[in-house]
């Protein structure tokens, strides 16, 4: 069917010989070019999860609030009042490394589509970014491009970007990570699924024209007539068009709301191939598609190109014939292109026609379910996988020098430079904006609900590199702690597993350990995993990235007015440290500045962590505390400085009780479990009284214009305005 193939094109398309044999066996014949292209993508790591699927089964996915678990385009949890929250995080790492602006922009576009594909209106975006150190011009370029790309898409489409995180570490130099999370809201009785149903129903393609976007490797299948340089000329960069997606979003939601759709599905990786076969697979039906009906952006696309094009801003829906006119009318009002391109059949086959000619015929099951799943062969590495980070601070640097260095270290410093480029307000839901509180808080009133949702995204890859199991536990705990600080109870979790090559035993070990850690932490907190994404093979000349499980968590709180801010509020308020916080220098930012990477993290007592989280949450909900902020990168000294900067007021604290194993640990040691709270003296007294088994340590008092810390013999003092200029200047200074 296609000319110009090499002798074993399947290898060039990334299929092993055994996989190819399996395809031949399932078809009962050799696949033609189109079929091979479709199989190669459907059986790719990206679509088939062949190295991670077995492992993912270890994650707990059930819970009382779960409405949709993994398997649909986004997970969903019940938030009461007839509403569900739908959310998912997804990576766009490789495209962003090639072209950061468009890569990040289309990453946002993709995750938005996953959320409105289930009939939910996207209400918030979060981004989780990893780059190399900022002394590298390339990292600065990638950061600037990715942030403006995220802003461009999110701002233009009118979805608030309310949170995120950015880390800078050497191992991301060649492989940056751009993960985007979207949170949406749907009426529970108005959700739509992606399962195609009803033979005779029509398959309608919505949205943008189809071009040669993202054909990538498969272009070797193009007919020879296109000429030698034809393939080279093919653009591999996809351009995002948020305006098109905005119309598509409004139009899709209106179609869902009007009950006009049988099924809805976004087009993501592998385009029409994967969206159609997954719809068919879920519905246990077949689909006939006529590629000659697909509206094209440029002439001359071959059938296989149309089937695998990754052109953005497209959706696929199933419509009963009687409702087609109504569907077309809604689409025309929104100026969204809508084209019937096929129909549902009872054949359980995906049949591709080019006009009258049958050009591909594949069993749906073979495409979706028959890809071999591989067992990992994990082995704990005998030698360190990563080099030590560059040394930037002398071991004997005094504490005040260390604190200043930490405050302006780009991974610690304020991310204001980035989040000011995001519209965090559109939608009138944002009760806590970036940096105001540990989690973003979104009120449900505009959508007819009560209370608010809180959302946070976290994952410190360096700590996971030190200890994949504990590091992943900590990522879950940190999200939950952020939620507790605003009084929210976790409802569900999504995650993106960004790792190196899983075929290497030490990477497989990292992956397995991290998934175990995540699973154990979820169980301890009673949170279900409702979805996620896996991004493997993030390695190149520079070696693998740090193992980076990014965790996104959504929770609910009854009264948004009581969501505690991070910053101290009033002179005279008392400060306390709540929770089982055991500061340790292993894996800390201070150790990073000193050029060291640990090979283990202290064990975590999950039960004690869960109890402390519940205590903090109730304290915040009850209005007992005026502020709450968790202790994370940089330890207590940095966390206290952040409370002062955010509140514009100083504090006097005594860390001596924590300093028995040295003042440095007390000041800069890290570990899960610590929350700094402040409040009126009586309220803090009362909390201390009811803390019970939850560790509760009075630290001092809010007031003055400097942060003054006693640590046994030593003292440390930093003016709040200086702290602010270090903290807020850290990132922009490096980007000048």
């Amino acid at each position, binding site marked *: 069917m296609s000319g110009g193939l090499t002798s074993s094109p399947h290898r060039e398309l990334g299929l092993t010989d055994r996989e190819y044999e399996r395809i031949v066996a399932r078809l009962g014949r050799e696949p033609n070019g189109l079929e091979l292209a479709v199989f190669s993508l459907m059986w790719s790591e990206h679509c088939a999860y062949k190295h991670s699927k077995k492992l993912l089964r270890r994650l707990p996915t059930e819970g009382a609030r779960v409405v949709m678990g993994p398997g649909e385009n986004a997970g969903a949890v019940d938030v009461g009042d007839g509403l569900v929250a739908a959310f998912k995080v997804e990576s766009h790492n490789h495209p962003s490394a090639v072209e950061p602006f468009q890569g990040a922009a289309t990453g946002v576009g993709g995750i938005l589509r996953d959320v409105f594909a289930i009939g939910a209106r996207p209400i918030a975006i979060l981004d989780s970014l990893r780059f190399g150190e900022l002394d590298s011009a390339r990292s600065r370029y990638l950061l600037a491009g990715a942030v403006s790309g995220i802003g461009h898409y999110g701002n233009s489409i009118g979805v608030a970007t309310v949170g995120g995180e950015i880390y800078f570490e050497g191992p991301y130099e060649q492989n940056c990570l751009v993960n985007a999370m979207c949170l949406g809201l749907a009426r529970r009785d108005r959700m739509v699924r992606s399962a195609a149903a009803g033979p005779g129903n029509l398959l309608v393609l919505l949205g943008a024209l189809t071009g040669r976007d993202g054909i990538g490797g498969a272009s070797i299948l193009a007919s020879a007539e296109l000429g030698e340089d034809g393939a080279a000329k093919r653009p591999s960069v996809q351009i995002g*068009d948020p*305006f*098109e997606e905005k119309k598509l979003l409004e139009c899709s939601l209106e179609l869902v709301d009007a009950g006009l759709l049988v099924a809805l599905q976004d087009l993501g990786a592998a385009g029409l191939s994967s969206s159609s076969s997954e719809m068919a697979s879920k519905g246990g039906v077949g689909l006939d598609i006529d590629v000659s009906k697909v509206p094209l952006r440029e002439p001359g696309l071959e059938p296989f190109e149309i089937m695998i094009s990754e052109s953005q801003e497209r959706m696929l829906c199933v419509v009963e014939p009687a409702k087609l006119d109504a569907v077309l009318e809604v689409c025309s009002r929104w100026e969204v292109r809508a084209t019937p391109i096929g129909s549902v059949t009872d054949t359980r086959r995906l049949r591709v026609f080019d006009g009258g000619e049958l050009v591909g015929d594949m069993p749906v099951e073979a495409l979706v379910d028959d890809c071999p799943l591989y067992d990992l062969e994990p082995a704990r590495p005998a030698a360190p996988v990563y080099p030590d980070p560059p040394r930037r601070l002398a071991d004997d640097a005094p504490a005040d020098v260390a604190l200043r260095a930490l405050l302006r270290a780009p991974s610690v410093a304020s991310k204001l430079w980035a989040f*000011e*480029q*995001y519209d965090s307000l559109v*939608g009138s839901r944002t009760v806590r904006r970036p940096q105001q509180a540990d989690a973003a808080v979104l009120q449900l009133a505009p959508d007819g609900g009560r209370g608010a949702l809180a959302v946070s995204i976290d994952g410190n890859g360096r700590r996971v590199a030190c200890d994949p199991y504990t590091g992943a536990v900590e990522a879950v705990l940190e999200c939950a702690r952020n939620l507790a600080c605003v009084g929210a109870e976790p409802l569900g979790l999504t995650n993106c597993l960004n790792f190196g090559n899983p075929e290497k035993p030490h990477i497989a070990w990292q992956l397995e350990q991290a998934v175990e850690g995540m699973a154990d932490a979820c169980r301890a907190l009673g949170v279900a995993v409702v979805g996620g994404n896996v991004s493997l093979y993030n390695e190149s000349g520079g070696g693998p990235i740090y193992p980076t499980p990014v965790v996104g968590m959504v929770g609910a709180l009854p009264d948004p007015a009581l969501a505690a801010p991070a910053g101290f509020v009033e002179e005279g308020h008392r400060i306390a440290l709540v929770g089982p916080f055991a500061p340790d220098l292993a894996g800390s930012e201070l150790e990073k500045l000193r050029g060291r990477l640990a090979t283990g993290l202290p064990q975590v007592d999950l039960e004690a962590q869960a109890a402390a989280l519940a205590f903090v949450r109730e304290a915040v909900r009850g209005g007992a505390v005026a502020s709450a902020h968790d202790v994370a990168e940089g330890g207590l000294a940095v966390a206290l400085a952040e409370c002062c900067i955010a509140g514009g007021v100083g504090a006097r604290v005594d860390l001596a009780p924590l300093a028995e194993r040295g003042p440095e640990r007390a000041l800069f040691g890290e570990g899960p479990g610590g929350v700094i709270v402040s409040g009126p003296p009586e309220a803090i007294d009362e909390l201390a009284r009811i803390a019970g088994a939850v560790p509760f340590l009075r630290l001092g008092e809010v007031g003055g214009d400097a942060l003054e810390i006693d640590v046994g013999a030593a003292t440390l003092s930093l003016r709040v305005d200086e702290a602010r200029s270090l903290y807020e200047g850290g990132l922009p200074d490096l980007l000048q």
Partner: protein
Amino acid sequence: MKLGVVRFPGSCDELDALRACRLVGDAELLWHRDRDLRGVDAVVIPGGFSYGDYLRAGAIARFAPVMGAVGEFARSGGLVLGICNGFQVLCEAGLLPGALLPNLSLRFVCRQVDLVVERADTPFTRACDPGEVLSIPVKHTTGRYYAPERILDELEANGQVLLRYAEGQNPNGSLRDIAGVANERKNVFGLMPHPEHAVDPLTGSTDGARIFESIAAHVEALRRGPLAAAGGSASAVVGRGAA
């Protein structure tokens, strides 16, 4: 009283604007293809990225059918408020003087800013005190107000500058710190900051409500008669269109 909020393809803040309007009266969405303003007493052109902001912010939206009706409404004295992208559209449409250029930073900026009320005797600011400072967020990439010097002098002389960024807070490089301007007749007003995002204590500030309260008060006053509407000012707006 009824307010109409225009919805273009690519509008983003229209539902926020609608909510803010509903705090002071009835409000409904007006579709960009409609030519009928449905008897509204005032029109709000909301923020967002109408038509993707492609080519130039506001350049394509100003040709939407609804803008023809809005133009007539404005010429007959009807109140028109343009917020952010709406301000850009009104400038492109020639209903307001000047133009909006890319921020000097060349970046999108989302930030709470302080605004000084320069004139408290207009339909859009009558609920404010002169010199009062309002805390309202901005969020835009193309918000640098520009007009030739001569026109700026005229605007100042006519009292058309209603809001200025407080000292040191100009987020975009707008000339003379201008955050919002009215036409000569003061029945059309555009501003880059988003008052509709400052009407709820939970989301940060309620200062933006003053703009909507002003419009409502003005429309009510008109109901009671032109003299009440004038509020003592000589440059009274009389009558309104499409009622």
